[in-house]
């Protein structure tokens, strides 16, 4: 890495950057789209959140101990769960237990695998690697988790007649919900599959761009990007799999009865 190549941004440069938000605000006002308040509020949130996380990361980097890094990862997992929950209008039974344990096992497992076997940094808690890698894995898996949970609830609702018909013919809960499980899992994976196919052509990914800006050779940045996309796909696949497999059972009793809505 050649971090010395990066141009540091001072306050006045950030003000110039923020001028582009003001330009967007002016255009929104001119066109009377009615989103000015939302735009301003979102930009302020972005500013405050990023500055806060910047100081927090600085502090964690300075402490250089595993405890704050682990706490930060747990907080990230907690926020993923909360955001996934807030996006869904109709939640499945035991939503937080199902999605929480799936995010914990799916994302946690993939983060550990990726950190130790793929990148292999040392010490194991090195915040410069662990926090951004886990952040990308959790953030993307959260989208997959929301899609899996939401689609499963919708499928179980829409396919009620089909499920009851299968149960009355002697099907198990799993057999009767097989189509719903398949569709929910497919819906959760599709955006990740599409992103992989479009990467490098339609858009340059943020992590790779950031590495290149900070002086990393493009070929190394590309290798990191390939590896992280594999990790994201793995995390989305495992987390969504666990959600649909645990989730469908919550709609049934042990006697293979579909619970009333």
């Amino acid at each position, binding site marked *: 890495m050649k971090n010395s190549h990066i141009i540091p941004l001072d306050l006045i440069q950030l003000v110039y950057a923020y001028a582009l938000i003001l330009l967007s605000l002016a255009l929104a006002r001119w066109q009377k789209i009615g989103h000015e308040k939302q735009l301003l509020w979102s930009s302020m949130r972005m500013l405050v959140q990023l500055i806060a996380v910047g100081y927090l990361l600085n502090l964690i980097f300075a402490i250089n101990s595993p405890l704050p890094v682990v706490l930060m990862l747990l907080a990230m997992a907690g926020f993923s769960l909360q955001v996934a929950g807030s996006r869904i209008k109709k939640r499945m039974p035991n939503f937080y237990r199902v999605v929480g344990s799936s995010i914990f096992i799916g994302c946690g497992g993939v983060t550990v695998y990726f950190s130790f076997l793929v990148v292999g940094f040392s010490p194991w808690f090195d915040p410069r690697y662990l926090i951004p890698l886990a952040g990308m894995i959790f953030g993307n898996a959260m989208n997959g988790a929301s899609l899996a949970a939401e689609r499963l609830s919708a499928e179980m609702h829409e396919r009620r007649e089909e499920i*009851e*018909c299968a*149960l*009355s013919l002697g*099907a*198990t809960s799993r057999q009767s919900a097989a189509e719903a499980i398949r569709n929910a899992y497919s819906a959760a994976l599709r955006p990740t599959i599409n992103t992989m196919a479009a990467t490098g052509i339609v858009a340059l990914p943020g992590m790779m761009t950031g590495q290149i800006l900070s002086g990393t050779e493009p070929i190394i940045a590309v290798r990191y990007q390939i590896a992280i996309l594999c990790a994201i796909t793995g995390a989305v696949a495992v987390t969504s799999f666990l959600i649909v497999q645990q989730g469908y059972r919550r709609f049934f009793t042990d*006697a293979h*009865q579909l619970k009333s809505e």
Partner: protein
Amino acid sequence: MNMNQQQKSDNDPCVEFIDVGVTKLSPADTETIILDRISFTARQGEITGIIGASGSGKSTLIRLCNRMDDPSEGTIELNGQNIATINPLLLRRKIAMVLQKPFMFEGTLLENLQRPFMFRNMAPPSAESLEIARVLDLVQLSREMLKRNARSLSGGEQQKVNLARALINHPQVLLLDEPTSALDRPSTTRLASTLINICQSEHLAIMVVTHDLYLTEHIVNHLIYLEEGRIVEQGVGPQMLAMPQTTAFSNFLAKPEREQKSSS
């Protein structure tokens, strides 16, 4: 077609309800009684009709028989054995159910008839098999239709497939929830004749939940009239229809049939 005069003395008890009750908790945590102390026996070789106005608990009652739902109190026995002790998957093969709205799985009519075998992880019978021929004969569907897309069939044909699919497991009891709700009079007449034929040839206990007095009058041996979750009157079908013993049942019969159907 009328089988009300059939001999019934040697018919064995098959499904017995003993003081069965269902209560449900509303979102406001108040208990609502859906079924209250229901006791009756449905016998093999007989058709038991359950009639009553909408919301009287008929559909809830029939769903208890094959454990699509469980009662809050009381016991239900199949040939003397409490159904709560029978594996529900096995029970649903012994007690088949035909739901109100015929649901066709994606695929051909044959694939729909093969589904129950796939649920048991068994090799499905071929189009030429005796199993398929037996159920097609029972519901009077022709073998030529086996390759047709099940979802493209008419309502009456789908109801027959629904019935054939339920019978393929060789059940001892057949449950039907409002089987005529989507049928016109000629189709209802054909279904009535089919049900009598099935009941006699397969020696099944059939339980029918219905609003349809025409169907009730033509096929039912034992009749149960439900009101607000309670059995108000039960007895031999034709006698009950001819001479209702309670004002409630009398009033129910006095309502035009159209009104009873539309309230479902």
